[in-house]
């Protein structure tokens, strides 16, 4: 693909840069909290934040649910992850190119229960998505599964 940016006038480039900057918060996120029940928090860079519906997620975030908690998230590649009570789920690595569907997604369920529907990353490349537990590694060829850890 040739680069259209090179052929744009400076004013258009400024406009484009502004558009990109405005779109950035949504683009830099790896996913979003879509459902939440009971106590759910997100550990981010050593801080514990309360998880709210609509909250944007970042790579390396760890979701923790309480005894009455549950949380559902939609990733940018359309993967759906949802965890039940007493769960710890780390979004260790997430890279996704929306134009090519190429990427890498590694998550770890340290404890609890997790339901997964894989998205565009796993569909594009069956080696590109893994879900780990403390004792196992799941290679996700697609699409819908549940896993528990630490029982």
């Amino acid at each position, binding site marked *: 693909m040739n680069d259209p940016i090179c052929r744009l006038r400076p004013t258009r480039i400024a406009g484009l840069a502004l558009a990109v900057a405005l779109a950035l918060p949504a683009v830099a996120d790896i996913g979003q909290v*879509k459902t939440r029940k009971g106590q759910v928090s997100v550990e981010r860079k050593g801080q514990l934040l309360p998880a709210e519906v609509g909250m944007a997620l970042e790579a390396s975030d760890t979701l923790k649910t309480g005894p009455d908690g549950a949380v559902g998230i939609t990733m940018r590649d359309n993967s759906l992850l949802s965890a039940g009570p007493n769960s710890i789920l780390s979004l260790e690595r997430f890279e996704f190119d929306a134009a090519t569907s190429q990427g890498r997604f590694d998550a770890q369920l340290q404890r609890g229960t997790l339901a997964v529907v894989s998205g565009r990353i796993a569909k594009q490349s069956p080696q590109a998505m893994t879900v780990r537990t403390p004792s196992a590694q799941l290679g996700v060829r697609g699409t819908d599964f549940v896993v528990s850890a630490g029982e």
Partner: protein
Amino acid sequence: MNRRWHAIASLLLAALLAACASKPQGTVVLLPDSDGRDTALQVRQAGGELLLDKPYAAAQLTDRGPVAASSSAEQVQARFGAALAARPLPPQQFTLYFVEGKDEFTDESKRAFDSVFGEIARRPVPDVLVIGHTDKVGTDVFNDALSRQRAEVVRRALLARGIAPDNIVVVGRGKREPVVPTADGVAEARNRRVEILVR
């Protein structure tokens, strides 16, 4: 007498060891794909590997490696009901089509727009990605602007229906990503479109 106690003790020891050896570390169950696509899961542990490739095929995770098992909808519901109930609505994709060279919906797409709006409205925190495209008639500059205008038409229509601006991201891709590949300069109705991803 002594011998009998030995026998009992060694049986107990064996049972204990067996219990330790198969100490459960978790469960994995492959579920049926909601759209009937092929599904599979490779389960890897230090002690071995197992491929799950049928709905409700399951693996018990143990310190000796995965042990093949089978599960059922009822068992999955009992153990994973809370996690499944928290699952977000699946993302939906829509395509709306445009009149040649213009940012006007075709008549059919005017009607289809209602279902897009309905899908957005039933989500507590929708995020909507609107991607405009053109066919290959005209220059890159013209088509970049037109694709963006088409996406903007969708955005304005959604705003008019009360969708929050923060939830909508608009992109114009010009003529670079046709669904129907054509030579440059060819008018193709199926390429004059806006794709709308509702999550």
